[in-house]
């Protein structure tokens, strides 16, 4: 989908042109949500786990300065080289410099939403470094020249037939072959060759432990480990908010992460990297890229508690029916909609409005981020900063005028059921979007107020 210049509503219109496909997308993600529910309900103490995780993350944000310093010191003691990057560009330059120094121009990369956020692939390719994404879903979208549409399930928007076609074109699988087992086996062979021949591997970081200087990377496929353990150079990229205080806190987060993400009791691999293996160099890049700004916003800072499980996407009725690309940012869905405006309020002014504020995201969040309340608060900020549609602002002022004056309200209602023309479901009179797929309410003879005047003494 070409997302250039279009907002969430326009991109959702396009996504909804094929209703059968919307149904398929919705059902597929609802299935993941259902698996998450089942896993959560298997843990009677689930809610206290969430509360515990939330409090640990609150503590992290309140003591981030010291935790980062102790993480850095411990990691360096362990033989890991620590770098700091203020923004995406600096992060990309650091990665490039490390690769250049090693004389490497072909690398493998496991899933890292941070590198998506920093557009690392484009940067490296521009500098003549080939990047192979090794997570199957990410490899698929890479071959399709698309961004991931989901942080955990990158190609959840693609049908197996489309993947079959891509593999036929790029990996030489038989035409028309779309069996997931066959396609996965083909990808295994294709990617094994990359693992065996590439000298540098990039991974993301799920958790970094201040107390020990180790970091944990979780995958189901084993691609982060295959890359890291076979490469001479391992570069791990992380946002500064990924720090947790102590090793034992991993218990809480590893119990929550996979259950929230896919309903698995834990990811297949939860790998703790503490020291480089003999002969290997290990780098970790600590990236800010707007996080300290978000930390400065009291209403929004706790979005930094996110552990990137994707549960809010799977449960979001809007995400399921609009697709990840409709959010036109690296991290889609409810969490993406409260993170993105921090980076560029104008560009992402539409995202906090791409929600009914139903609150399901907040309820599934394993670290209890009040996502829907932050969506509401971002709306206020975006309007105040002047990024709202001027037509909407006019309509709102007219509404305020009418609703704040009982006399005006009553006569407006009486004369023409003022509401039918001016309420939220009919803001644009010319092309009333309500009426496209819905009938208008029937207008009663009397309002309740009018009825009450006649009957109050009954």
């Amino acid at each position, binding site marked *: 989908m070409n997302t250039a210049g279009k907002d969430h509503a326009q991109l959702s219109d396009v996504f909804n042109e094929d209703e059968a496909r919307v149904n398929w997308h919705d059902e597929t993600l609802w299935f993941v949500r259902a698996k998450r529910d089942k896993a959560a309900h298997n843990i009677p103490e689930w809610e206290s786990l969430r509360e515990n995780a939330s409090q640990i993350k609150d503590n992290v944000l*309140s003591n981030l300065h010291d935790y980062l310093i102790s993480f850095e010191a411990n990691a360096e003691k362990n033989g890991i080289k620590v770098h700091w990057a203020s923004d995406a560009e600096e992060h990309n330059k650091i990665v490039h410099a490390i690769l250049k120094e090693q004389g490497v121009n072909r690398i493998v990369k496991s899933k890292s939403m941070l590198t998506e956020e920093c557009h690392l692939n484009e940067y490296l390719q521009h500098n003549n470094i080939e990047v192979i994404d090794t997570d199957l879903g990410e490899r698929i979208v890479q071959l399709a020249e698309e961004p991931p549409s989901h942080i955990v399930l990158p190609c959840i928007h693609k049908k197996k037939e489309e993947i079959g076609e891509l593999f036929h074109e790029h990996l030489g699988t038989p035409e028309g072959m779309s069996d997931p087992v066959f396609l996965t086996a083909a990808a295994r062979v294709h990617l094994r060759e990359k693992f065996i021949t590439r000298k540098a591997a990039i991974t993301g970081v799920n958790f970094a432990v201040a107390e020990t200087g180790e970091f944990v990377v979780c995958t189901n496929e084993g691609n982060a480990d295959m890359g890291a353990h076979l490469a001479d150079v391992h570069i791990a990229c992380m946002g500064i908010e990924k720090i947790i205080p102590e090793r034992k806190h991993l218990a809480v987060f590893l119990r929550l992460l996979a259950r929230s993400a896919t309903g698995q009791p834990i990811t297949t691999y939860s*790998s703790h990297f503490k020291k480089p293996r003999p002969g290997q160099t290990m780098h970790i890049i600590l990236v800010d890229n707007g996080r300290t700004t978000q930390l400065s916003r009291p209403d929004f800072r706790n979005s930094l508690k996110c552990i990137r499980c994707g549960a809010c996407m799977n449960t979001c009725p809007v995400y399921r029916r609009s697709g990840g690309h409709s959010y036109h940012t690296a991290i889609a869905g409810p969490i993406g909609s409260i993170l993105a405006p921090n980076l560029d309020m104008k560009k992402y002014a539409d995202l906090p409005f791409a929600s009914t504020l139903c609150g399901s995201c907040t309820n599934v969040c394993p670290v209890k981020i009040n996502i829907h309340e932050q969506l509401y608060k971002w709306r206020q900020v975006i309007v105040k900063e002047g990024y709202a549609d001027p037509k909407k602002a006019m309509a709102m002022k007219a509404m305020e005028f009418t609703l704040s004056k009982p006399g005006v309200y009553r006569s407006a209602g009486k004369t023409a059921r003022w509401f039918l023309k001016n309420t939220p479901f009919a803001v644009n009179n010319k092309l009333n979007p309500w009426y496209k797929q819905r009938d208008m309410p029937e207008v009663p003879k009397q309002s309740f107020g009018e009825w009450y005047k006649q009957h109050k003494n009954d």
Partner: protein
Amino acid sequence: MTSREQILSKIKTHQPELTSLPAPLTTVPGTVNLIELFSSVLVSIGGAVVEADSYEEIKNYIKQTFKDQKRIISTLKELADVSEQGWESQDPHSYENVDLAIIQAHFGVAENAALWITEELMHQRAVPFIAQQLAVVVKRSSILATMHDAYIRIGNAEYGFGTFIAGPSKTADIEQSLVLGAHGPKGMTIFLLP
């Protein structure tokens, strides 16, 4: 100012008032049979459990079940006569054609069937990931209830690399169809010893 100083100073300015860490969570005592739970979870994530009374039994099982596997390596001296010798110090890339790796775990966790394995039990970090099949030996008495117990057991142990492995490598990236054997082992067998 370096980026490091900039980031740290911004954090110092903006981080909220210090909140305390919550009291650590512990395993909620229950009546579940840990071995049964471990086994059923492992099977549900694509692994297989073999209860064995001795290394002899494990060897017999390997000879029967994996008789077609050409390259079998093991870190366990007890399994020396069913596995290749002198493999340990090679370039990790050379394990690409290992059909079966048999290693040991420190302990397993019943709630998620994960096994804790550190570098010294792998000899080389790549081993549990690159082999086509993985088998892990663990004692029945080393099956803990939850991840809380797991990290109590790990404590402040020193390691260069350690990992929880739960079942075979897998993916569901294509239309949520679960496929075993994404990049790593296509199968995982756990031998439970007394």
